[in-house]
């Protein structure tokens, strides 16, 4: 009996700011959408996030950042995943990201940026449609 493949998402907070309310809200919304959410909490380095993402074999990594360091942190996560042969893992981000940074982040391989005020349903649909699509 092949059971339905569960979507697994890692939700993490890179950087030094201590606000994880947004991350927790999205983690709960994902759970309510039927996903398995691995929540790793605050102050994660890109290395820690990528290592966890690989051990947990997630389809997607969602990172939120309020500290302004997203231009370093998000691309670094994508880069590390690539280096470890895990470029099939979808990376998306949220938080306070200025509009002008979004195209650059996309170029760096971040699949989507959800700015504050985006309904959680949009992120859920995004993950559901894209999760595992490129899975190797």
């Amino acid at each position, binding site marked *: *009996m092949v059971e339905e*493949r569960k979507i697994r998402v890692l939700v993490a907070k890179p950087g030094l700011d201590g606000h994880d309310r947004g991350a927790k809200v999205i983690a709960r919304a994902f759970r309510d959408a039927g996903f398995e959410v691995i929540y790793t909490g605050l102050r994660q380095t890109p290395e820690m996030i990528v290592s966890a993402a690989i051990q*947990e074999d997630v389809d997607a990594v969602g990172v939120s950042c309020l500290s302004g360091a997203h231009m370093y942190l998000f691309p670094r996560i994508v880069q590390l995943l690539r280096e470890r042969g895990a470029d099939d893992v979808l990376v998306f981000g949220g938080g306070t990201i200025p509009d002008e940074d979004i195209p650059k982040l996309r170029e760096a391989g971040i699949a989507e940026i959800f700015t504050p005020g985006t309904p959680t349903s949009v992120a859920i649909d995004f993950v559901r449609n894209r999760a595992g699509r490129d899975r190797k």
Partner: protein
Amino acid sequence: MEISDRVRAGDVRAMARLISLIENGFPEATSALKGLYPFTGQAFIVGITGPPGSGKSTLTDQLTQEFRRHGRTIGIVAVDPTSPFTGGAILADRIRMQRHSLDGGVFIRSMATRGHLGGLAKATNDVVNVLDAAGKEVIFIETVGVGQDEVEVVKTAHTSIVVTVPGLGDDIQAIKAGILEIADIFVVNKADREGADKTVAELKAMMALGPGRSDWSPPIFKTVAIEEEGIVELAQGILAHQAHLDQAGVRQERQRERSHALFLELLQERVTRRLLERAAANGILEQTIERIAHRDLDPYSAVDEFLEKAGF
């Protein structure tokens, strides 16, 4: 290279992917598990169970640190419950263990129960086998936060640790039911809180009332996991139990019990599945259920009839 060879070589991606295949019930998983089985049986398996929030994850993290100090490689399986309403889960045990995420000697996997009862996920045993075959020397299994009957972890673990905390009040009565018998080691965590000594005394009193075990008297350790207090002693307690198991030949006995349980479980699952698949294909299942529902047939005779037709 086959996925099982890559797992044996300690390839993290392969381990992680195989675990997903197992969890999702994919057929490739079974063939890989067949190939890995001969290489299992090396790891020492420690189960950690206890009420929600008692500090299981924090203790697992600290014990991992302590065993790493002695060079042992570690596998961790941390189980959290699946929401029965949505099928989703938040797996948060890992938060307390993330400092080990960059240590190549530690592999951590979070699992959701996916409807399985007993405090573990259905695939836990198989996942432990993957970690074992990959060469992890000590494997910790953190169960979901449980109260009483969810003691399935004893079937997998060599050493079962039951964690409790001061001030649970009457709950200590509640944990006594199934859990008292399974504990090889008791931990009273959060010993920084008032009442730790009272909890220890209560545990001792309950053990005195219990059936008692001739071969091993479960020690009680007081810990403050967040302060790293009592961890060295607890780790030594685990090693002492391991030594006891080897000496008394109990470990082999447990291995046999584990194999027994595993075989029965698999057999049950496979037999049921095959019978049902066949019965569903030729319509017998539907007809039989219809007849039972209409009281044309009682369920007891229905099963007899069903099994007879299947050649049993």
